[in-house]
């Protein structure tokens, strides 16, 4: 699979989690693609943590408004019924449990639902931005990422990078499968039929519990 195929599989699968009327925050990078796969008939409101809900697609060339960007500083538009607010309201929405879903990438995630995605000590310290609040406050936290990073394992027994939040992740979606964080560990609920269980486990440090009713992932 090429990178675009991988990303499409993941984004499409994440989008299937949303219900009509949900409020969702999509992180920068791969999670942003999820917006392209929201099923017909499901109305999802997107939040941009720099201060609005009702985010729409990128504007046509020449129609950019310098005051209307997403949290990655890219030009966007808003849909009818959008609302703008200051950063304190934006993070009241996030921390106060008003977001149905936050979708983010990860450097590491583990079987206890711990997430690390904001720094690599001594190497790269971009900062947490809004990620810690998003992961702490959203009703459901979905990690959307490639299963490994150029071969190195990201789904751990226990994260060894500094955490973004402790025990907050609910679901992990990769190109190999869909894993739910349960008190017993990671429950593999769906798998990409292109991979065997053994292949998936081999790319995963945490022991995967295979769901009795495991399904094929839609790819």
């Amino acid at each position, binding site marked *: 699979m090429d990178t675009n195929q991988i990303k499409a599989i993941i984004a499409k699968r994440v989008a299937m989690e949303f219900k009509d009327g949900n409020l969702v925050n999509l992180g920068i990078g791969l999670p942003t693609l999820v917006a392209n796969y929201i099923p017909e008939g499901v109305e999802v409101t997107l939040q941009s943590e720099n201060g609005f809900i009702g985010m729409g697609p990128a504007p046509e060339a020449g129609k950019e408004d310098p*005051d209307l960007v997403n949290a990655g*500083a890219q030009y966007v538009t808003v849909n009818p019924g959008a609302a703008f607010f200051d*950063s*304190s309201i934006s*993070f009241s929405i996030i921390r106060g449990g008003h977001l149905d879903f936050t979708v983010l990438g990860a450097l590491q995630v583990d079987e206890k639902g711990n997430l690390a995605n904001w720094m690599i000590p001594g190497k*790269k*310290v971009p900062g947490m931005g809004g*990620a*810690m609040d998003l992961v702490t406050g959203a009703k459901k936290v979905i990690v959307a990422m490639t299963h490994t990073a150029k071969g190195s394992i990201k789904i751990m027994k226990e994260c060894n990078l500094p955490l973004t*939040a402790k025990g907050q992740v609910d679901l992990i979606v990769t190109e190999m499968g869909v894993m739910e964080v349960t008190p017993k560990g990671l429950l593999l609920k769906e798998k990409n039929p292109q991979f065997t269980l053994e292949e998936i486990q081999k790319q995963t440090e945490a022991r995967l519990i295979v769901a009795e009713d495991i399904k094929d992932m839609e790819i």
Partner: protein
Amino acid sequence: MNKLKTIQEALDMIKPGMTIMVGGFLGVGSPELLIDGLIQRGIGELTLIANDTSFPDVNYGKLVQNKLVKKVYTSHIGTNPESGFQMHSGEMEVILTPQGTLVEQIRAAGAGLGGVLTPTGIGTVVEENKQKIEVDGKFYIVEKPLKADVALLRGAKVDQKGNVYYNLAARNFNPLMAMAADLVIVEADEIVEVGQINANDVMTPHIFVDVVVKGDR
């Protein structure tokens, strides 16, 4: 009570070593002329409070690029490589704070609160060396208020009394910072007569604003 000043008059009020807050999110909603003025004058040794350190060539990101910042309270430096470089070399101290905490710390200073009780950062390095308290069985970090000597803000419309109206995503931290600094300077895209902003739609009431300068948009 004439609050309208020139950029140069406003810059005269900003001294090296001061703590400055700058409104904006990756430079969107930030004052342009005031920042360029700081750089022209080389006003340095600043402590900067801003959501991020923007990009090297955009707005307050240029303060870092020009080595005018000795310490920064921020949530994100990843878009400005110079910030990471100066952090690692020790030239600039970087206090990284979750974005929602940073905005509440600024709000707490303006609102006379003793701090913020947030669950964000519990179980992470963010809680290290900080007071924590338990409320109804759940733990929260006590994060202190954050105030500044000067706030440099950008408004879309500002009336001659100092009432401010912000535009779209350029609002962000601006109204919070307007309450949390001793001296509040707003760079206005447009300066309008009193009454041209509906009293019900004012986003920063004039009593928070000390100085209004005209921007070049």
